[in-house]
Structures are given as structure tokens and as C-alpha cells.
């Protein structure tokens, strides 16, 4: 898992939170080392006391208001207005950027589909990066929706391919490239799996997630046959300058920690005809 830095701008302002972050970083380094490392318990003991004190005063990550927030489908227009305003305020506090959270609905008589020409894909992964930039995905740890698998020409055995290819240029000789992301299934197993209806298929075919409803059980990840879902194992980190301020509630707003996300077909663009 890359990256250990867990600083972010808002908490830097509060000394107590800063102390807590430091303890966390320390403990986490200790926790991630193999079990037989000798210094572990000692370090944990030292950090534990500080952490307990910090947590006791540091407070919850959830406010009362968000705790009882309704499911997206049950929100009235006023509810949405209030919730969106809160998310905008939080984003401004955390990133110092003004963002707008919108909620474009599915259009009548529109059903989305996408095509990829495998004979044209040369494996340069520009789409992966464009997607990350558009959708405010965490840069650290890196979360990407699209995975490009490099395969030997003439085979489709994915186990023998790799998504970690490197080199000076693409395409490599005798290789083909298979980009994979959410296919917005007609009969999505992830939607069946979710125990709390936090993910569903909209009438225009897009499978969406209410990030404020997801409990983070990751059962949808086990169910997905295309490995399209990602989990936020920690608070997503996006540099201030890289924030895309044009955000959708069900699409590219910065995700909370501990929830699942996935390709949402850029619905904040596609539903507006972009």
C-alpha cells in the first residue's frame, strides 16, 4: 500500500488533531510491520496512551446531522439542498476551494452505453489519469477506476496478463491492451449484494452509490465480476489545486473515508450532455 502521509489541511489548523495524526502515523507504521517485530508492543504502548487521550477529546468523524441523514431516494428537495450545502461547506473548509454539488437526474428516454475499440487502445493509460482528475479520486492512496491489462497478442487469459506494465513507450510489440472498469451491468450483482440499498441502478442504466449511506462492508466488491469497485481504506487525499469543483452528489464529490466508490459514468457531465 503506497504512501504513509496522512496530513491534510483542515486538521493542520488544530493542534490537538495534529497530535492525534502524529500518533496515528506512528501507530500505523507499527501496525503495518510484521507481527514478530520486537519493538512493536513497546511503541504501541507509548502511542496508545496518547491516542486514547486524543480520541477521547478528538471527537467523532460523524456529526449528528450526517448520522441521521436520509437515503438519497428518500430526500426531499429541501433535504438535498441542505445536504449539498453541507458537503460544499466541508469541501471549502478542508480544501479551501469553492465547489458546487449538483444532482442531475436521469433523462427520459435516455439509456447510456459505451464502446471501446480494443484494436485502437494502445495502452497509454491517459484515460485512467483523465478519469482520476475528473472524478476527485484519492491520489494517496491512489484510487483508479480504470484498469488496463496488458496481454500477449492472441490470448485472453487475464491471469497471464498484467496491469503493472512499464516501459518507455506503448504499445509494446506483440501486446494487446484491455481496459476494464464498471460495465454498468444490466443485472448488477453488486446491487443485489448491498445489504442496505446504498447502491442501485438508475433508469438510464448507471449504477450509482450514495456515499453517505454506504456502510463499507465491501460485499459489493466481492460480488463484482469486473473488479470495478474501490474502497477508501483511509481519508482520500486530493491536492487542493487538483480539486474538480464541478461535483455531483452521486458521482465525483470527494468521497468520505470507509466507503466504496466506482465508475459513475461521469453522470455530472453525461446527463448534462457533455
Amino acid at each position, binding site marked *: 500500500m503506497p504512501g504513509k502521509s496522512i496530513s491534510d489541511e483542515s486538521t493542520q489548523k488544530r493542534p490537538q488533531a495534529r497530535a492525534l495524526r502524529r500518533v496515528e502515523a506512528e501507530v500505523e507504521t507499527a501496525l*503495518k510491520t510484521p507481527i514478530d517485530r520486537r519493538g512493536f508492543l513497546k511503541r504501541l504502548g507509548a502511542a496508545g496512551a496518547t491516542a486514547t487521550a486524543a480520541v477521547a477529546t478528538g471527537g467523532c468523524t460523524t456529526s449528528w446531522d450526517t448520522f441521521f441523514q436520509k437515503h438519497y431516494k428518500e430526500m426531499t428537495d429541501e433535504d438535498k439542498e441542505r445536504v449539498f450545502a453541507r458537503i460544499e461547506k466541508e469541501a471549502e473548509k478542508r480544501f479551501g476551494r469553492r465547489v458546487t454539488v449538483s444532482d442531475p437526474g436521469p433523462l427520459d428516454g435516455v439509456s447510456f452505453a459505451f464502446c471501446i475499440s480494443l484494436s485502437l487502445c494502445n495502452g497509454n493509460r491517459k484515460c485512467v489519469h483523465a478519469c482520476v482528475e475528473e472524478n476527485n479520486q484519492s491520489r494517496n492512496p491512489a484510487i483508479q477506476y480504470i484498469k488496463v491489462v496488458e496481454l500477449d497478442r492472441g490470448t485472453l487469459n487475464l*491471469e497471464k496478463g498484467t496491469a503493472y506494465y512499464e516501459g518507455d513507450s506503448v504499445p509494446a510489440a506483440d501486446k494487446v491492451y484491455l481496459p476494464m472498469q464498471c460495465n454498468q451491468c444490466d443485472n448488477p450483482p453488486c446491487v443485489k449484494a448491498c445489504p442496505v440499498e446504498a447502491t442501485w441502478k438508475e433508469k438510464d442504466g448507471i449504477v450509482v452509490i450514495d456515499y453517505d449511506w454506504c*456502510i463499507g*462492508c465491501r460485499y459489493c466488491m466481492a460480488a463484482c465480476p*469486473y473488479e470495478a469497485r474501490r474502497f477508501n*481504506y483511509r481519508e482520500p487525499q486530493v491536492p487542493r489545486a487538483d480539486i474538480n469543483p464541478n461535483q455531483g452528489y452521486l458521482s465525483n464529490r470527494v468521497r468520505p473515508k*470507509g466507503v466504496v466508490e466506482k465508475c459513475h459514468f461521469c453522470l455530472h457531465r453525461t446527463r448534462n450532455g457533455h
Partner: protein
Amino acid sequence: MRTYFQYWRDMLRCAFTGSNVYYAWIALLVLLTASGLAVYVIQLRVGLAVTNLTQQVSWGAYIANFTFLVGVAAAAVLLVVPTYVYHREDIREVVLIAELMAATAIVMCLLFVTVDLGRPERFIHFLPFLGRLNFPLSMLAWDVIVLTGYLLLNLHVPGYLLYQLYRGRQPAKAAYLPFVFLSIFWAISIHTVTAFLYGGFGGRPFWNTAIMAPRFLVSAFASGPAILILVFVAIDRFTDIEIRESIFKFLRRVISIALPLNFFLLGCELFKEFYTDSVHTASAEYLFFGLFGHGLLVPYIWSALAMSGAAIVIFSTERLYRDRRWLIAGSALCVLGVWIEKGMGLIIPGFIPTPTGDLVEYTPSAGEFLICLGIWAFGALIFTAMAKVALAIQHGRLRAQT
């Protein structure tokens, strides 16, 4: 009502008084529970990044332990049926212990699921009115319902019987027998639903098998009685209560049937995997032989099979199982073997390789280890307390003062 408060006061006093050995045992469990809790607090703050879980292997030690413990809970039915259906009076003496063990195992299951959640505070989304339970579509929604129901059943039946005994009254059959019979079917359902939880998806061919539920039940009927044997040996050894030989005999018999049967079902599974030899065999290949040079689980699965095999030998050799030490060894091997086989040996390979052919291995982090240990210690703690109270009431040492 006053008696009821008195009942709780007496029970708590009984649960937390005892010999020095008892205090030391309780202190150890409290300490381990506290350390698990401390790490969990850190996990709450940092996120599940304190685990070694990845985008590829998104379930690990928590869910593996959960799966194993559902089986332990279901295994209580093995003593419930002979007691209430076949009226085995000797087993009736210990059936409450089995029911309390089931309740404990479910509490542990719920804890293991909770620590696996990214947003545990959103558990209210499961609840009626406040939440939106995806029932009947989601197998996880089913699991939450059956596990909670089984917990309530296994708290009600022993709770009611013990309260009546405490007050020196005859229990009313209508107040518990219907729940006992319901719990028999319910026990089968919890492990079946848990098997369907994994077996229901085509995207994970390793789990997508029809014999998952039978395998789960059969392996539970081996490991559950093995744990009970260990518990009964401990009661026999550390208290003045004697556990009858006939109860050990019954449990031994169950294991000597269930454990070989578990091997048979595993064999069927392996035949399907390796004779077919399709691309979907990759996970089984990873588990048993390693794949493309990665084989972290290979030594574990083979040692699990060796342990189960050794347990079969012990449980079918009279000279060995008559000896308490061998009986303990055989039971421990059986528990460990099944724990590895259906815990880590079943959950992890389901994610390796991933549907896109990615191969990322997984071992629990120290944080996960401590949280798991904490939950096991907490389970042992509440089970010790409940069993101690139950035995005291059953043997007439704890009675209402009238």
C-alpha cells in the same frame, strides 16, 4: 420484578468471584480484550488502512473468523436435538453450556462483522424505519436477520430455564420448547445463509459451488463438538463438576463421522476443480500448489489437512481417545484444522487471482491480529462468565433468597 434484579445482581456477583486461578484467567482475558479495543479505536480513526486488506483482497482475517464462528454457533444444535427430541438426560445436564456457547459465538460473529465495516456508525441503516435493509435480495441482509434471531433464541432458552431454576420453579414448556424447536431449524439456516453469502456470485468461481452449505455444516459439526470437548474437559478439570463419560462419547462419535465426511466433500470439490482444469481452477491452484510463484497459503492448507487427518486417526483409535491428553490434542487439531481450512483457506483464495487476473497476496497485519485476538478474548470472557453462572444455578449453588 425485584427478584429479576436480584437475579442479575447474583449472577454478576457469581460471574466475577472465584479462585485465584479464575481471577488470573479473567484478568488475562480483560487485558487482551482491552488491547484489541485500543487497536480498534485506532482503526476507527485511521480507517481500515491499519489492516493489510487491499483493493484486490478486500476481506481477510475478520471475515474468516466470522465464517468459522457461525459454524461454532450452529453446532449447538448437536446437543439440542438429542436433549429435547430424544430426551437424553445425560446431555440435558450440559445442553445449556452448548446454547450459551452458541450465543457467545454469535456475539463474536457480530463483532467480527462490525470491525470489518468501514462505517460502523451507519449500522442504523440495517434497522427497520431508520434504514433500508435490502431484503430479500441481499444475502448479507439475510445473514444479519438469521444471526440476530439465533442470538435471541439462544439467549432466551437458557436465560428462561436458568431463571426458573434460580427461583426454584418448574419451567413452563410452552415458554421455551417452541423456541427450542425453532432454534434447531434456525441453526441450520445460519450456516446455510452464510454459505450462500459466498456461493451466490459467479464473479468468484472458487466460492460459486453448490456444496458450500453442506461443507460448512459438516465442518461445523466437527469443529463445534471439538470445542465443546475442550470446554467440558476444562470444566471437569477446574471445577468440582464432573462431566459424564457418555457425553464425551457422544461428541467423539459425532466428530468421527463429521470429520471424514468433511474430507469427502473437500475431495468432491477438488475433483471438480482439478479434473475440469479450466481457468476457474486458478484459485484452487493458488491455495494448494501456488500460482505463478505465489504460494503464501500453501503451507497453511496442507498443515490444516494434516491436522484434520491426525484428528481423524485419534478419534477413531480407542487406545488414543480414551487418554485425556490425546483427546485434548485431537480436539485441538480438529478445531485448528477446520479454522484454517474454512477461514483463511476459503475466504482469501476467493480473491486470488482477482477477476482481472491480478495476483495480490494477503496476511493479516499486527493490528488485525490484535483486534481478532481481542474479540476471541472477549468471547472467552463472556462465555466463562455465563457458563460459571449457569453451572452454579444448575447445581443449586445459586438460588433466590426467599
